[in-house]
């Protein structure tokens, strides 16, 4: 299992401070949800863990190695990343797209091996996209495309998976399916970090939540500790119904605090 440490991480984009002193240790085998309002710095934190965003101050380490000093290719084998926004520039066939996930494991000028093919099939089965194998990815529905891109991220088979809003554009059935899948990955020893907006699903599936507010950690811990009325009022500016439905936690936003 891979351990990630974030040490007093500051990031400024231009003159604006986006992250202002984040500290967290992320252990393997957990599904960790990063939640917070728009602009809280969730995606920037995800990108910083990957080394895609340089720290202004502080650092991120993976198994005690500074991300800023690790070569891109090595980070790519350690962390798989599902970026926000379903970017897809060319109309690739689904299988070819999922195969991109094997790039970190390929030696220069080599071809995809049988082991890679097995990993691609496994990822497509997990994300329930095997039947779409020969379809053109850009012609799929938003939900299908989201699952294909998730399969692409799973095909890396890295010990850490960072998914930035993996539930966007999925229907409720597929949202539950994707959360189940992320949970299974975590149970299998993968450190799963998911940026989420749906608080009920975050409460129900995550082992730990990190609530960000204006670039700082507003709360960090198990879901019951983080998702309480006071935190929701303070960070999101809302009043919400907090309770349980059939034994599962649920959060229903009711009013905006004026």
């Amino acid at each position, binding site marked *: 299992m891979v351990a990630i440490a974030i040490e007093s991480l500051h990031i400024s984009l231009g003159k604006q401070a986006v992250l202002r002193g984040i500290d967290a240790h992320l252990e393997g085998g957990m599904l960790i949800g990063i939640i917070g309002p728009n602009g809280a710095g969730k995606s920037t934190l995800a*990108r910083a863990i*990957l080394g*895609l965003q340089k720290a202004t101050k502080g650092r991120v380490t993976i198994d005690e190695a500074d991300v800023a000093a690790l*070569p*891109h*290719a*090595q*980070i*790519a*084998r350690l*962390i*798989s*990343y599902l*970026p926000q*926004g379903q*970017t*897809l*520039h*060319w*109309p*690739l*066939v689904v299988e*070819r*797209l999922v195969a*991109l*996930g094997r*790039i*970190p494991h*390929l030696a220069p000028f080599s071809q995809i091996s049988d082991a890679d093919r097995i990993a691609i099939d496994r990822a497509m089965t997990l994300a329930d996209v095997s039947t779409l194998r020969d379809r053109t990815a850009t012609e799929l529905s938003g939900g299908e495309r989201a699952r294909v*891109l998730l399969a*692409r991220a799973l095909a*890396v088979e890295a010990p850490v998976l960072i998914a930035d809003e993996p539930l966007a554009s999925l229907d409720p059935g597929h949202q539950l399916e994707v959360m189940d899948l992320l949970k299974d990955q975590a149970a299998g020893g993968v450190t799963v970090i998911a940026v989420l907006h749906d608080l009920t699903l975050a409460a129900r599936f995550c082992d730990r939540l990190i609530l960000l507010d204006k670039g700082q950690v507003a709360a960090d811990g198990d879901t019951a500790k983080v998702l309480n009325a006071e935190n929701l009022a303070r960070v999101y500016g809302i009043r919400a119904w907090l309770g349980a439905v059939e034994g599962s936690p649920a959060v229903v936003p009711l009013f905006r605090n004026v």
Partner: protein
Amino acid sequence: MNRTVLITLLGFCCLAAALLSITFGTAPLSLQRIFEALIGSDDPVARIILFDLRMPRALLGLSVGAMLGLAGAALQGYLRNPLAEPSVVGVSNSAALGAVIALYFGLAELHAAVLPVMAIIGAIFALMMLFALAGKSESPLTLILAGIAISTLAGAGISLTLNLSPNPFAAMEIATWLLGSLEDRSFNHVLIALPCIAVGLALLLWNGRALDALTLGEDGAKALGIDLGLMRIRLMLGVAIGVGGAVAVSGSVGFVGLIVPHIIRPLTDRSPSAILLPSALGGAILLTLADILVRVIPTSNELKLGVVTAFLGVPVFLVHLMRERRIW
């Protein structure tokens, strides 16, 4: 279409086009005479036509076409824009400006190598400006903006030399060169262009996997371990050296880099890496065939290559337009 089948097929078409290219011309040369001249018969006329005229022309057609086709495919993949081609990064125009300066000051008459060398210097100069203007940013948009600035500047320089040309003959010479041609090229031209083109082709073919990864956007590609900075250096050097060398001997030949990837893409799985080599072969075939057309279409002056490729470019875009509007 299966990749091996496609590449083999295009390879054969290349050979066929090259063979056609050495057969066609003002003086007819039968396949039998060509073959005999190749194995060393003492037919001096056939040997001169073959080795001094037709072979360099065919070789340049293939190599310049391959370079332009591949440069278009690589740039479209990198900029993720199906309308990209070598001219968007300013290299073609700058190479042309270098050549035009050689013609304007009469330097081209000093030695046959001066014009192509000046064109290559123009291309390298464009590359240096490109890196200086685009800075360290890895965004393709800054590159396009810098490229357009350089291209426009070089275009203005070309217009200026035409405007100030000392006499109508000089202006005519410049204008004619700008239309592009492979007429009367010798093995010296091949020796100047081929090394540049070989380096260009190698640098561009190197980027297949990185271009595929860019399908997922810049963050997606970086998260797959792709070093975008290094890739950009390889790509820009490849385009500048290769296209610079090509333009140096052929003059401005537009549209090949733009249309060839569009023709090739539907025959592949559409991933950027899959169209690289086939686009090089396709460019070689297209330019060689265009150069044959130049010779067989009867006109009072020989048609210029750039004119023919420009006319060939139009139908390709009309087909795409009709597909986009779902008319066809």
